[in-house]
């Protein structure tokens, strides 16, 4: 708790500083900067620790005297992580599962979002309510029936079992988010394209889709990250070591004899890097997607 406690302590009182009196403006700005720095340290420290531990010699990790900065750097931990059995197959599983489920999810949610944003039809409101309500179901609560159903359909220990689960669980949010973007594209654009001789499909491909790109990017990254980081469903559905996704594979570093923290941190760094990089790219779109889907509609 040392990580969050100091911020809460320093953070609260400064919130009352009057930010709008011009004479106090510079002082309040310093206070806010201080808050920012403290929050930065608190939020970044675990990330820092992840990366620094991955590069730290193993004897320092198993030391009673932890230091904030390592005495030397090494790639041994990465070596051990990569040498762990099934690393390659875990990457492959993760890529296949995430890629397929995100592509499929985007396809389904785009056409559904288009339908609810562009057409008036009976049951539209009900459909939207269902989309929202479904997101409120606790994800773990459905484990047993899903497990039984997959078992009956032969989907246990199969990629497609996990793919279906990831795809469908991304649908409600992605549909909702993409709808927010479709609504913001003026209908006239599409109509004028159709007046000029485009079919509805053509108008969709040539006019809507390019304008929808940022929304699609945001929604797909969101689904991708959820799928990439998910481990419980994969852990339950997949049973063979060589089918595990990266997150399930990470559990290999914790055995009954203890945890190989160095290798675990190295492996985690490898897994987290693509996500962080992706996130940095779409972070702006994502926030606007979240709010445009939520606030304005």
């Amino acid at each position, binding site marked *: 708790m040392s990580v969050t406690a100091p911020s*809460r302590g320093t953070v609260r009182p400064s919130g009352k500083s009057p930010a709008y009196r011009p004479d106090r403006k510079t002082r309040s700005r310093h206070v806010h900067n201080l808050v920012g720095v403290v929050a930065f340290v608190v939020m970044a420290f675990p990330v820092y620790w992840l990366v620094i531990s991955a590069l730290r010699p193993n004897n320092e990790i198993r030391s009673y005297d932890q230091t904030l900065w390592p005495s030397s750097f090494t790639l041994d931990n990465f070596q051990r992580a990569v040498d762990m059995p099934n690393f390659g197959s875990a990457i492959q599983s993760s890529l296949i599962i995430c890629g397929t489920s995100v592509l499929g999810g985007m396809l389904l949610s785009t056409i559904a979002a288009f339908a609810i944003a562009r057409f008036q039809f009976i049951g539209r409101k009900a459909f939207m309510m269902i989309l929202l309500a479904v997101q409120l179901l606790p994800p773990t609560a459905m484990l047993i029936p899903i497990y039984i159903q997959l078992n009956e359909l032969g989907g246990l220990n199969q990629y497609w079992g996990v793919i279906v689960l990831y795809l469908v669980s991304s649908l409600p949010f992605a549909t909702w988010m993409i709808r927010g973007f479709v609504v913001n594209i003026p209908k006239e654009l599409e109509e004028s394209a159709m007046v000029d001789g485009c079919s509805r499909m053509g108008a969709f491909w040539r006019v809507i889709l390019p304008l929808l790109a940022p929304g699609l990017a945001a929604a797909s990254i969101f689904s991708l990250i959820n799928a990439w980081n998910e481990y419980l469903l994969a852990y339950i559905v997949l049973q063979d070591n060589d089918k595990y996704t990266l997150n399930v594979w990470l559990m290999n570093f914790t055995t009954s004899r203890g945890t190989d923290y160095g290798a675990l941190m190295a492996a985690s760094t490898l897994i987290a890097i693509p996500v962080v990089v992706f996130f940095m790219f779409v972070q702006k779109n994502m926030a606007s997607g979240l709010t445009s889907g939520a606030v304005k509609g």
Partner: protein
Amino acid sequence: MKAADPPVPVPRKPGQPESGTPASPSGPPDSGPAKGTRKRRVGPLLPYLLIAPTIVALAAVFVWPLIKTVIMSFQDVGRRELWTGEAAPWVGFDQFTDIFGDGEFWDVVWRTVLFMTVCVVATMGLGLFLALSMQRMAKGVRLALTGALVAAWAMPLLVATSIFRWFADSDYGVLNMVLTKYLGLDFRGHNWWLDPKQGFLIIGAVVVWGAVPFVVITLYAALTQVPRELEEAASLDGASATGVFRFVTWPVIKPVFQMIATLSVIWDFNVFGQVFLIRGNKPEPEYNLLGTYYYEKAFESNSFSQGAAISLITVLLLSGVAVYYLRQLLKIGEVE
């Protein structure tokens, strides 16, 4: 304008999404002369065709399991019924009376409610405060903070949980080191897991740390929609900072805030991974929250019906929140 050719084969079974590659960009091949009649025939059906795949998928993965959960909680499904597919005996309300008569269940419920409340209040409070503060920071600080938030947000749950578990390790943990070395307290070899209160402090830290980025980034985006001139005008007219916040800023961000708060309630009520992983895949009874308690009943003791009944109770407990959330969205005209 022809619409006879929806871009996707409609009766897509959720079972074969591997074929879910985007529709061919070549467009529909049959933009023939029969346009007019076709449009009239398919036109009104088109939206239904477009949402049909999603409906089927949601029904298969969310609605059917929910129905199945209800059915199972009135039966007694054990290991044998699960594997052989034999019909399970009906037991009426037995599962529920068992659960409600179990003192441990009530302990778990209260623990979950308390944990959820603390986490949500901490997350939303910190999140709102940081988002407000971010507006007034120097640009460099703000960018650095955004970077840290995004990195924290993107961190897989499993990774974050392992790191926090290591922080709290009694021998090799940074937490004890910092408390001992820099704050002069004697925490050498202190075991954080002996006392569940301290243990939940660590688990709460993982949860809050993981949830704050989403809240801050979303609220910050919402705050950019507050007209600056309004805030300035209000403060020129003599409104205090709290007055400006209460009467100008808050009304604008309120819907987003309520939405995130509701989602946080639901997420924190269903916390599973953090507890499960931080306690080495086998939480002690005093660390059980509803999520892990359910898992333990269903998968460790193989009484699947008890598990189903517990998850049904969870859904019902949360349905109040869900109804509030939906009504809120209806009120702000979201579902139009």
